[in-house]
């Protein structure tokens, strides 16, 4: 018998600030090419030495992890599972630059040590003295969903009770300048939003989002995760079977989905896929979030925060509606999240009110 899996706590450091009850009502639409996360004060939370040494990705994650655990009253989780597309790019960039500038001489180990993709999960384990299962998934746009899949397997089988699940990516100057040069990110002077976008590339950003996941419902529970599905590649024509196969295994029909959270990011080649999925769910209310989060590999974790918020509050903040016309729907039971990037790393997640 599979156990049910619940989101019992959330923590985040994003372009919209930290996770809080006014998170969506105070949100503003991003229009810059590069959007840094609004950093909280780390003083008193992380030692001054560590604040200097640690990259933003690590600090944001430590903060978000603590918020999520605190909200769910979990002190030490049984496992820590993270997803990140680019890992610790700030330290990676730093080490690479000094390698180039000094021709393999006078290098120091700190940035190399902190450059591995698993640094965030490791630093949290160290901070919490958590000796349990610890894995980092690194697969582009489905990095976070891979971590979610791992989490579901641990909790559904009853192997573990509490899992700290996170998705994090940080912006680092060299990495994004390369992505800009390649046309993946909008150029510096462009001021466009997801809706007004006409130039190629995306509004790039960063963020850390953590979820305290458990095999039991508690007072702080936001929602239940029904399941996740990953698919590396997909043709537009396969969208129907991709969705139907997944819903069928969950005993769901398209009309059971009350809202669909789509990853529209303003890049027209990406957005075609979201249009195609939406067509398969004519009764579902389309929501979007990348106008608030920006695009980065683990940004779909922001989408899960949207689903969790809507299901718990039973209300949709108006800024999340993709259509101006607000539907008459008043109860929200099943929400589907769909994400992909450049036609790769497709993921579907069904989240249910609990």
């Amino acid at each position, binding site marked *: 018998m599979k156990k049910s899996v619940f989101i019992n706590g959330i923590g985040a450091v994003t372009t919209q600030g930290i996770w809080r009850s006014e998170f969506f009502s105070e949100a503003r639409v991003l229009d810059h090419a590069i959007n840094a996360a609004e950093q909280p004060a780390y003083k008193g939370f992380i030692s001054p030495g560590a604040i200097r040494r640690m990259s933003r990705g690590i600090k944001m994650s430590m903060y978000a992890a603590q918020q999520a655990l605190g909200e769910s009253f979990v002190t030490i989780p049984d496992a820590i599972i993270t997803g990140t597309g680019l890992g610790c790019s700030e330290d990676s960039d730093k080490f690479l630059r000094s390698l180039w500038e000094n021709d393999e001489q006078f290098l120091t180990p700190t940035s190399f040590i*902190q450059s591995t*993709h698993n640094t965030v999960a490791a630093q949290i384990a160290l901070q919490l003295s958590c*000796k*349990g299962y610890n894995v980092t998934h690194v697969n582009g746009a489905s990095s976070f969903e891979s971590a979610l899949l791992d989490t579901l397997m641990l909790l559904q089988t009853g192997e573990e009770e509490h899992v700290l699940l996170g998705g994090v990516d940080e912006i680092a100057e060299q990495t994004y300048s390369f992505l800009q040069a390649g046309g993946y990110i909008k150029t510096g002077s462009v001021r466009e939003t997801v809706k007004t976008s006409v130039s190629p590339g995306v509004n790039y950003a960063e963020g850390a989002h953590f979820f305290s996941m458990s095999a039991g419902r508690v007072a702080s529970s936001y929602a239940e995760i029904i399941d996740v599905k990953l*698919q590396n590649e997909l043709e537009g024509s396969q969208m129907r079977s991709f969705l139907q196969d997944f819903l069928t295994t969950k005993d769901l029909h398209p009309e059971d989905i009350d809202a669909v959270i789509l990853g529209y990011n303003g890049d027209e080649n990406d957005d075609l896929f979201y249009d195609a999925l939406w067509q398969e769910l004519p009764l579902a209310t389309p929501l979007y979030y990348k106008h608030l989060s920006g695009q980065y590999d683990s940004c779909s974790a922001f989408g899960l925060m949207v689903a969790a918020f809507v299901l718990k509050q039973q209300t949709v903040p108006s800024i999340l509606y993709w259509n101006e016309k607000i539907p008459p729907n008043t109860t929200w039971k099943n929400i589907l999240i769909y994400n992909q990037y450049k036609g790769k790393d497709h993921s579907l997640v069904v989240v249910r009110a609990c």
Partner: protein
Amino acid sequence: MTDRGVAVTGMGIISAIGETVEENLWSLLAGKHGLSRIANFPTRLREQIWVGEQKKTNDELSASLGLSERNAFTRTALLGAYAARQALESANMQGAHDLRTGFISSTSVGGMDYTERYGPTYLTSPEWHRYIPSHPAGDSSHKIAEYLGIKGLVTTVSTACSSAANAIMMGARLIRSRRLDRVIVGGTDALSKFTINGFHTLMILADAPCQPFDMHRKGLNLGEGAAYLVLESEEIVQRQGKKVLAYLTGYGNANDAFHQTASSENGEGAFLAMQKALAVAQLTPQAIDYVNAHGTATPNNDLSEGRAMQRIFKSNVPPFSSTKPFTGHTLAAAGAIEAVYSILALQQDMVPPNLHFDTPMEELDMIPETAVRHRSLSHVLSNSFGFGGNCSSLIFSKA
């Protein structure tokens, strides 16, 4: 699901000691190591370090894979595709498109080898821009999956030097939870200036061939390579009447939670990982006939791992060896390369030697096997530990 575990029905490998499973086996039996000076790219450290480098160049690997000249495969992807192709062939995977097939790869360096080569030109010339999207770790998995024609659940693990062990574990759990029927699992990592210099700054690279578990060990040698296993559910194996190479019966993952790069003195993470793997396999420590140790030959790892082994096995430490003197430490690929060696040990009833061992460590009461030893093996435990305290153990059992 029976208690026999998950079946391994295919494997493929490329390392410094061979481009096929057979060549790797031959080198292990002959005690022929693959360490040399680095030749595939220039580095200031060339004369200071020994590496387990695979001598096929990128052009040779591309040609062998039949890729177009303007491909954007990094060396990590090339090595991975080369090994994964063999794994599929050995599992006789043609047809059977009705099976839910996945691919779980792992890497630590990803496309860094090309970023470090062409990055300085990216902002001034578009010539090498096709390698910009090849940088992220997940890109190598995409390239390999596309090359193999796998569409479905494709993802990537990165937990430093224990990456491949965790990819193998993830695959086994996907089969056990009935989410997949079949999955190709493993890891790939290419040598790069980035990692060579990184380990150099940590002062853990030996200036001579490494000596795991030796009192006078001076550090590790880096290596490169890739290896993949094909895992299938017992149900599919029976339905297809497939030959099983071995069973993956146990796996465990724990975190040392001690230090970002150093292992704890009593090897807590390693101890917990081995303990969990034994519990999953439902085996007592006495049932393990051979341990393929992580054994990097750094002063810290071998002491910590040795202590953890003594805590698990008490005074009955089974025959053990580190095969890193053959291949160098292949980082994210190590867990997969050593999984192949563990399966070869079971198939051949053979314990591969721990080369260059001379003086026992005074802190430990255990001595590795120094020559090939033929004895009947039923269960082999393989350890992989990484930066960030990531410790993983796998148990393979005779088919």
